[in-house]
Structure formats: C-alpha cells, structure tokens
C-alpha cells in the first residue's frame, strides 16, 4: 500500500483560478479555504490570484496579502519537485533530530527552508507532526516516516533526489 506521492500540479491559469475561488467564496471566512485550494491546484499561490481573491471576498489586496504572508504553509512560488519536511520540535530534538537535520542539509547542500539548485528537493523544518512517541519524524511529499535514523534518512534523501 506504499502510495507513490508524486505531487502533480496544474500550471497557473486565470480561468481555472477564478473557478476555484468561486467554488469556495460563499463560505463564511473563506480566505484560508481559498488559499489552500489554490495551492493544492497550482502548488503555490500565484501573485496574480491575490487580487482575484480580494475582489471575490470584498477585501483589499493588502488584507489578502496579509493573510497569505501570516501562515507558514502558503508558498509564493512552486516548491521543488519533492518536499522533505523534518520535524524540528522538542520531542524530535530529544531523539537525535538535530544531527539528522544537519545530515540532511549536508547531503542536499541546502539549509532548512531551501531548495536544491536542480529544483528537485525542498528541505523544510516542520514543528511537530504529532508522531512524538516514534520520534524523530519526517514527511516526504505527504508520506509520514517515524523512527528516523541515519539509514532511513539517507534512503529518503536518495528517494527525493531521484
């Protein structure tokens, strides 16, 4: 049942963007719902979508931009082909997460938060996946991995680089 998580996103398209926005605009407090839906479709929230969201919700562009920038999840440009998130919170620190994060950085040649030059892998910190009893943990494109050790990490990095 090992699902292959290969994220596939649509290229930005204004008509498609407008459809997505219209689909959710009637909900109360829809801003985050719409931003999530846009990112799910396109892999990021295109700059051009911000004024469209603002207009649909009768908000200013500044307000939508403010919401967009407040939350860590939303991207202003596409991530690498694979996203490897390493939990950097206390439970994973206690279980050796610091050394694993340094190892991943060295192997990929990027710091946490960065994307490799070939755009294959984005390495990100995440603050708690709730897998604290099987720490340290990671997430590769939505797939969860617990009891991370050097061997498992190396395999994950290799998988992400493919």
């Amino acid at each position, binding site marked *: *049942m*090992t*699902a292959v998580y290969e994220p596939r996103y649509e290229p930005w398209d204004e008509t498609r963007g407008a459809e997505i926005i219209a689909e959710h605009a009637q909900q*109360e*407090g*829809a*801003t*985050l*719902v719409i*931003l*999530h839906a846009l990112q799910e479709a396109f892999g990021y929230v295109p700059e051009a979508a911000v004024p469209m969201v603002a207009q649909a*919700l009768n908000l200013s562009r500044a*307000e939508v931009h*403010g*919401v967009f920038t*407040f*939350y*860590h*999840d*939303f991207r202003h440009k596409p991530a690498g082909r694979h996203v490897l998130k390493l939990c950097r*919170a*206390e*439970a*994973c*620190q*206690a*279980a*050796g997460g610091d050394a694993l994060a340094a190892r991943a950085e060295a192997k990929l040649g990027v710091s946490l938060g960065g994307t490799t030059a070939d755009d294959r892998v984005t390495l990100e910190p*995440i*603050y*708690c*996946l*709730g*897998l*604290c*009893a*099987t*720490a340290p*943990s990671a997430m590769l494109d*939505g797939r*969860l*991995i*617990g*009891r991370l050790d050097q061997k498992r990490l190396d395999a994950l990095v290799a998988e992400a680089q493919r």
Partner: protein
Amino acid sequence: MSIRLFVSRDAGAVAVGADEVALALEQAAAKRGVAVEIVRTGSRGMYWLEPLVEVATPQGRIAFGPVTEADVPSLLDALASNTPHLLRLGATDEIPWLKRQTRLTFARCGVIDPRSLDDYRAHGGYKGLEHALSLGSDAILNEVTASGLRGRGGAGFPTGIKWKTVAQAKADRKFIVCNADEGDSGTFADRMIMEGDPFLVIEGMTIAGITVGATKGYIYIRSEYPHAVEAMNAAIAAAKRGGYLGDKIGGSTYGFDLEVRVGAGAYVCGEETSLLESLEGRRGLVRAKPPLPAHHGLFGKPTVINNVLSFAAIPFILAEGAKAYADFGMGRSRGTMPIQLAGNIRHGGLFETAFGVTLGELVDDVGGGTFTGRPVRAVQVGGPLGAYFPRALFDTPFDYEAFAARDGLIGHGGIVVFDDSVDMRRQARFAMEFCAIESCGKCTPCRIGSTRGVETIEKIINGERVSENLALVEDLCNTMKFGSLCALGGFTPYPVLSALKHFREDFVPAPTTLQAAE
C-alpha cells in the same frame, strides 16, 4: 473460516509501516487461500509496539508487535497452527501498560473501526447524546459542572462555567468551535482520538450545541494532521448519513451541523482568539480579552471553544453521570488525563489515567526511561511553553495546581523526555527562537522579547558577560510573562527560567574549567 485482523491506520502507526504490514498480510493470506478480514482501527497508543497486529479469538483479541512485513509469513503460520510466535504479546487487554490505565476518553480508540458509525454505536457510542437529549440544557450544564471537567487544552478552565456563559448569552446565532490545532511538541492525543474515534468528538460537540443553543460547529485542525482531517471528514459524512448531524439529530427537534477547517502552519492559532481570527479568514492575531469568546467569539457571536479532549470527555460524563467521572482524580483536577509520553523514551505513547500519578512514575515506571538507555536528565511537560523538570522534582503529582506550584504547567499533557546528552542552553535558546518564529506580532513583549531572548542566550552560550546576561534573560522573562497578551509570549519564560533554575550548571562555566585555564 475467516480470520479477523486489526491493524492501526493511525498516522503514528502508518509512519512506522502499518500500511505495508496490512498490505503484506492481505497478499500473503490471499496467496495461501486463507480468508482474512483486516479492520483498520485507531492506535492503542503503545507506539513502541507499532505496527501492532491483533487477531480476534473467542477469548478476545491477541496482540503481536512490532510487526514488520518480513514477519508476516511466520505470523500467519503461527495463527494457522496456533503455535507460539516471538512477537506474540498475549491478550491485548492484559498487556500491563494498557491494563493499568483508566481509559474513559480513549476506551474505544484502537478497538473500533473509526469509519464505522455502527461500530461506534455497538461500543456504547451516542449513549451520552441520547441521555443529553432526555435531560435538556439546564440538567446537562449541571452534569458537566458537577463532573469537574476542566479545559484539556491547557488552561484548565472549568468547562461547565464556559458552557453556561454561552447558554445564557442572547444572540441570533451561536457557535461551537473545536480547537484541534494541537501544535505542542510531545502531544498527539487530539490526533489519536480524531483518527481513532472521531465520532466521539462529533458527539461531544453535538451535546455542546444542544446545551447552549448552537446549530453550527467548526473543527479547526492543523494542516500537519492530514490523516486526522480525512478521518474527521469521513466521520462527519457518516454521521450526517446516519441522522446524527443535520436537522433533527437522533430523531430530536435539535439541529446541528459540523464543518472541518484546516489551519495553515501557525502555532499561535492554537490560542483560542487567534484560532477564531483564523477561522474568520484573517491573520491569526490574538485578540485582547475581554470580551471573552463566550460573549463575543466566532463572527462576533457567543461561542463555546474547547479542546478536542474536552469535547471527547463529554459523552462519558453524560452517559455514565458526572459522579462516575469526578470519582477519579485529585484536588480540583477531576477525572482522567490522556498523558502523552514522548521524545527519548522507551515506552512512548498515550497513557490515560486519573490525575495524581507522579511525574517519576510516568517517566521511569510507565515510560521505562530513555530508549537510548542513558539516564533521564530533563523532562519538558506541557509543550514548548512548559517547564523543564529535573529528577529532583519527579515527585510532582500530575495535577494542575501541583505543577503550577512548582512553576510549571501540565498544559495538554505532553511529556518529552531528554537523556543526559541534552544541553539545556540550547533548549532555552530554542524556546525563545520558537516564540520568535511563531509570535503573531501583536504585542511587543512577545514579538521583540523573543528575538532579544535568542540573542542574549546566544551571548551566554558564547561566554560573553555570562552573569550579566543571565540577569538580563531573567528580567526579560519577567517582562514577557507579565506583559504579553497571550500564553505564547507569557509562557515562553517557563522553559527558559526552569532551565536556568534547575540546570544552572549548563549556563555557568564550571569553576574547574577556569582553574585549569591558569
């Protein structure tokens, strides 16, 4: 005859291979021509035994764990011939770690199929709602108040009082909001219950709705929990089909509907007013209180906002009565607390027990010490805003007031264990750094103080004017503690000051080192 197997679909089990084991079981059984039914349950909470495989027998369930794909053929052999197996743990209910717990909230977690409303009902589900419908608002409030239930999110505010305030408020609309933004490291009880027994949360929220006169509820789940989002959405759909959400719930005159909303990676949104702002579609800026959410909450309407575990405790209280719940616990901490053992720990997982158990019992006895085998040096209780406790304080009983008396907090019940390789300067620095990353920016002590805190602790780490900078950090902590708008800035001093107080030797260079330099 078909063999009935149980494998968890809990994210914590999936992260260590439960999906692969379930698939291998299915394939290997098919190859042998053995009929198997694999039920994907929640987790029992014994994470060091995951992936746990249970098999139904006339004498109850027998457990095997931790099972890998490679173990599957021998496991099926053992089941077919009824012979011993290395991973056989015996009857699940007799495993001492489970047996010594008092599972009121987590009674069904790991037992039932979380996607099946029928399974939920077959295991006592919706009895609380049935009783609540026969009682009416005032009597429900009496029960909840008499149970002594306090908010399980961390603040410990009496749930009955909160509900009563909303019930008495006059408004055209009221809301029930479930705080499932479980961001504290070392906690996973909300995630487990949403994945393992989601109807319980729905039932608790529905009871809250009929009590205070709200017809709409929201569950705000953090985006880091995709499995929980999926489980809650599936359960909500099933409850609607079964007549437990929507108009005339359970055949009554009450209507109640639920919707899941997903957060976007902001820790501060676990603070209730920030969460409400986020639900309304805005930046998660903390609101000043008063007005309380009970008067002026979601969209300005009276709102009950409680943690997942608070709602999850409600059905038991209504089904079995307030006294049955309040009989457990100590002092003003009544009932049970789902405690989460995490970090560098041998037997990590979910341990629900009555308040009053000591920290030492939990860490050494239940948790079995560290998995690295090194001595336990520090435990952080209550998430990133909780204090670090040394062994000397391991006699502290798990109780809101007892922890407060020792400058700590139980928070959401997470315990993160560190061995003797921990550098408490780095942990103190991380507490400030985390606050700086996650501060909503509304109030100055939190926004600026956390950054200054990181800088000052860094100076201490680098050996710059250590005693002066230590005094500065303590002063800064006081400013943050008393001057911040919410618990993020206000409680970040707990881990910092406790590290300074109990692990001073990490901050001040040992005199011997100085002598050696002569």
